[in-house]
């Protein structure tokens, strides 16, 4: 197990290096850089601009710049945001917790809905419950989050006025009120993301349970005289969740991508909205850092999924 973990972490290094190289090159090839707007500013003489470019090494070859970035990165220096005028790591550390909170809660919500609904529907295939669950699941993943998000804002924030529609990272309240405000403003983004994911997870859970429910060991369990509930809990659920774990991990990149849109709609000051702002401002170091954090998170979630997989299925040995 420890050997496996070490080996997986070692394998993660070259893959992250590769990802960072590609990201860096693509960003370097893209037109525009942080000093682009200086060119249109008549108050900045061209010499100053050239001096600034030279100071930050903007005219060096891509590989040299990449290696410089890598060396700085290795020492914990993430670069400087030209637009926000603070260090990139401070900026990102401000934003990451919010994103993880919103995405994490939405995934928990998605699984809390998908697992019981999927299992219940699969145990009674083609029943009324199953039909309704299927229909709702189709509706759920056909509706894009930017549409449902706006709909919720219209309904709960504008018509009913129950929930705030701008997410604030710094809430002035203290104590329980502070928590309550946080939860209140998170309800809508979490619901939108969670329900969207729940729709597709429900379908997967349902088909996984359908597959497991007709296997021999389920008949064995029933032949022992176990009640249907016990058979489902002890013999079906764990086996059916094994493929679902892989799926959730593979969905992570899509979830982060989807979160960028949702964060933008609800003005959640997360890492996704930071990315959008940075792109609009041509703030290359921030774009680079955010996309790299995304890749690290995806690699990390895949590793967690593989470890979970081994915990759920004793046949898998970590070698």
């Amino acid at each position: 197990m420890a050997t496996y973990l070490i080996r997986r972490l070692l394998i993660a290094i070259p893959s992250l290096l590769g990802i960072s190289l590609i990201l860096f090159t693509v960003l370097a090839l893209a037109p525009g850089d942080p000093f682009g707007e200086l060119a249109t500013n008549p108050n900045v003489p061209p010499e100053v601009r050239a001096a600034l470019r030279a100071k930050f090494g903007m005219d060096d070859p891509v590989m040299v710049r990449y290696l410089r970035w890598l060396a700085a990165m290795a020492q914990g220096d993430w670069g400087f945001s030209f637009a926000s005028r603070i260090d990139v790591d401070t900026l990102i550390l401000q934003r990451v917790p919010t994103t993880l909170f919103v995405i994490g809660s939405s995934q928990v919500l998605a699984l809390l809905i998908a697992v019981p609904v999927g299992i219940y529907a699969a145990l009674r295939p083609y029943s009324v419950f199953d039909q309704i669950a299927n229909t709702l699941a189709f509706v759920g993943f056909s509706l894009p989050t930017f549409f449902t998000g706006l709909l919720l804002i219209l309904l709960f924030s504008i018509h009913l006025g129950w929930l705030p529609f701008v997410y604030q990272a710094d809430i002035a309240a203290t104590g329980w009120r502070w928590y309550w405000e946080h939860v209140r403003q998170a309800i809508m983004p979490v619901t939108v993301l969670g329900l969207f994911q729940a729709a597709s997870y429900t379908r997967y859970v349902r088909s996984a349970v359908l597959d497991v429910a007709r296997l021999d060991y389920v008949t064995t369990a029933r032949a022992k005289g176990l009640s249907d509930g016990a058979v489902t809990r002890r013999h079906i659920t764990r086996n059916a969740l094994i493929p679902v774990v892989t799926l959730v991990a593979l969905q992570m990149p899509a979830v982060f991508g989807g979160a960028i849109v949702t964060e933008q709609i609800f003005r959640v000051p997360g890492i996704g909205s930071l990315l959008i702002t940075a792109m609009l401002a041509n703030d290359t170091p921030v774009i680079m850092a955010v996309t790299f954090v995304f890749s690290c998170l995806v690699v990390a979630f895949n590793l967690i999924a593989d470890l979970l997989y081994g915990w759920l299925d004793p046949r898998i040995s970590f070698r």
Partner: protein
Amino acid sequence: MTGKVRMDPILSVQNLSTAFKVERAWRPVVRGVSFDIGPKETVALVGESGSGKSVTALSIMRLTPRDSSRVTGSVALGGRDLLKLPDAEMRKVRGDDIAMIFQEPMTSLNPVLTIGFQIAEALILHRGLSRSAAEAETVRLLEKVRIPAAKSRIHDYPHRFSGGMRQRVMIAMALACRPKLLIADEPTTALDVTIQSQILELIKALQEEEGMSVLFITHDMGVVAEIADRTVVMYGGEAVETGATDDIFKRATHPYTRMLLSAVPRLGSMTEHARPLPFPEIDRSTGLPLPQDEIPDTVAHAERPVLQVKDLTTRFTITGGLLGRPRGRVHAVEKVSFDLRQGETLALVGESGCGKSTTGRSVMRLIEPQSGSVLLDGEDIMALGERDLRERRKLMQMIFQDPFASLDPRMTIGAAIAEPLAINKLASRSAAREQTAELLRRVGLSPDMASRFPHEFSGGQRQRICIARALAVRPRLIVADESVSALDVSVKAQVINLMLELQASLQLAYLFISHDMAVVERVSHRVAVMYLGEIVEIGPRAAIFGNPQHPYTRRLLAAVPIPDPARRHEKHRVTNEELKSPIRPLGFEPPDRLYREVSPGHMVQLPSEGPSEAGLPVAA
């Protein structure tokens, strides 16, 4: 038994019928089946696939799908009709009064729960034992089914056990609450013969100890003869004949029973015949065999052998550790040598994991062997480049075990048969169509079937299609890897007869890979016995079966169930041995093997000193 006074039955099944809902219509699967099972009695339910025997068992347990099946009639257990019990009451009967074990030990245990938990589950449920008491009882049960070091194994997961051991765990689980009746649904079908005889002995011994009744479902008449007091023969969902096992075997009245019995391959039935013999044709109306002719000698003794294999070795590397370095090797095929002549059948026999299939694949270079030479018509296959190898593969074709998996379900059978012709550019489109028609006729199917898809055919017909596909390129050698093992007895007989007939007319050489000794005795000219990747004994069929020399050959032959209830009490000497593994440490080189010639062409491996001597008792 005939002399026994009949007591009140434990279980009485009256007029049991089961129907399944298929596309909104009720399709009967079991029709009006009635039988009784007395105390301590073993009743066999025998029939071919689709005869409704498993559905009968599931109906007794009320385990058929609730919404899509309908069970009528009565199943009386101790005065209660099980079919009328409320669900909660029925659950108390399952696992407590009636327990069940299934065919596939590999899939009938839950892979993510420890075996200790799975056995204790029933004890906690029905006996209300505490966790620790249930655990102690579980250890006792595992010892009862003769699992070595039971105490240290209760926290192991099912994948750590071999097939035979898993079936023991299943039996322990079934015995947990001392049921009055054990239903065993083909419990030994998926096991090797030596393991099968161990499990049969175990069931017999436990039945004695616990005083329970057994309903034993099987398709194997040999097993029936071995274990059952009474037998119910099922055909097309009906019980066509019921009686004491002796009577069924000696004085069967129903034509189907007679047909079933005459189609059963019997070990030792070939002693008077020098050459392979087709199964007798059976008169459908009486069920009795028709007189048959011997087939001519097909072997081309004078010519150079079609296939000469010398020191063929195939090993697989097992890797592990931080950098995935090799840790050990599976010595799947180890210095195997044999010749095969035109028109001859050489059978490769042995139990699972002995390397017989790998040998077949290595000969065709479907798996790349490590070393050795394979001469096909005098040309070394091992030295060929990719393109030449593909060219030569026309001469050797393969027929696989599972006729359901070896045909592409989305390709018509005509296209499947014509494909090898097209790939090898042997025929134009219209010529290929003609040849396909001819091939279908040849294997006993009609040419107009060419436009149908595989799912429209039965297992036996599909195997015929596979044979036609193999014949399309006019091969000289056919590797038949367990080609008839998955077929029902009567179908098996037909397919074997077809293979023998094709051998006579086309001078085919067969490398016949099989674990079924009775079939091998029928079809082969020569036999090679494989054990742990090596040929331990090879020789003419009559010599191997009549005068087996190697201890493993003897053990293999002794384990085959004999379809004759009168010989049941010739007790098998069953050891509790597991099949050995051919995994060796890196750098292991097996010692040079010496062979002794018993009679012309009959060679037996001499026991040699060293660690690899497979733990077999040396022949006295």
